[in-house]
């Protein structure tokens, strides 16, 4: 191409070889997606059902006499259910993201969702660990009170070490991992928006 001649971008653009449309592959992908969506709903419901059954069975089988045990069971159940519900709460959030909006609107909503998601993940994770630990502590009290003192002390030391590990190591690690990914996405969206002005 001569330097002083304008380049015909349209001609070059249209000369690009394109693969043949593959409708079979497309419909396979559509059915695969529908199946995976259904699978997610089933897994979530089965998990909730199992958790509830498990707690009810403990209640019936062990016949707890202390009120602390009962409250503990409620807390544990509540923490698990909250985690399941809130991690799935991000799904309705994505329903706000309409694929046929203009790019500017789409990016705006996308950014809002990501910020909300980061908030939910961090707050829910913090609450989950607190409620679960308190629940376990209360639940264990009845059984520990029937033990000999030295066994009860070991029991609680191990338990507190487990809680500390969760709180000081696992929780920050999980939060950091989640927010790092989301933050970089938010940052990228902001850059795209700024560049488009």
């Amino acid at each position, binding site marked *: 191409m001569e330097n002083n001649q304008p380049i015909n*971008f349209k001609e070059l*653009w249209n000369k690009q070889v394109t693969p043949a*449309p593959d409708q079979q592959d*497309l419909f396979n992908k559509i059915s695969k997606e529908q199946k995976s969506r259904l699978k997610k709903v089933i897994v979530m419901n089965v998990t909730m059902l199992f958790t509830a059954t498990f707690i009810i069975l403990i209640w019936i089988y062990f016949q707890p006499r202390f009120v602390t045990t009962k409250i503990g069971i409620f807390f544990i159940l509540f923490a698990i259910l909250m985690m399941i519900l809130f991690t799935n709460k991000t799904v309705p959030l994505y329903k706000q993201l309409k*694929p046929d909006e203009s790019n*500017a609107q789409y990016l705006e909503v*996308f950014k809002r969702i990501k910020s909300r998601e980061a908030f939910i993940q961090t707050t829910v994770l913090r609450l989950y660990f607190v409620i679960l630990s308190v629940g376990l502590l209360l639940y264990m009290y009845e059984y520990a009170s029937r033990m000999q003192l030295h066994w009860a002390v070991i029991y609680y030391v191990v338990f507190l070490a487990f809680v500390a590990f969760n709180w000081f190591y696992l929780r920050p690690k999980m939060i950091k991992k989640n927010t790092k990914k989301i933050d970089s996405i938010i940052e990228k969206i902001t850059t795209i928006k700024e560049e488009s002005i």
Partner: protein
Amino acid sequence: MKFEEIYTTYWEKIFRLCLGYTNEYSLAQDMAQETFIIVWQQLPKFRNESSIGTWIYRIATNTCLRQIEKRNRVKQTALPDNFVMAEEKKHDIEPQIQLLYRFIAELPEIDRIIISLELEDVKQAEIASITGLSESNIRVKIHRIKDRLTKKFMENGE
């Protein structure tokens, strides 16, 4: 318009748009298919408020933008000029076409979308409606992008 008809009419256009965005042949193919999955799902909701073309391009460009989440960073590494990927060799032999798609994929995200739509002969008013920017902004941007691309071609000795 039936889905099958839409699919065959728009497939090539959407594929080129995705290729301009990523400059990766197989990824562009996946993104184009992803676009049509959404089109298939959303078609019953289409209300003729905009033309079907604008509607499909909006879905396609938003699918491109959504790649931020999936890949976090779209690969923009410039390859050495004499480097031709084996896969691309099969599909594309003209180095100038390769260069054009590569240069477009190196632009900022929204610019990639704007120039790809312009090269697909989409009207500037429609591009404005797809991107959500003003028509005058689109006009200025197209001019600048074309200048930038020409400069890149010249620097490359074409």
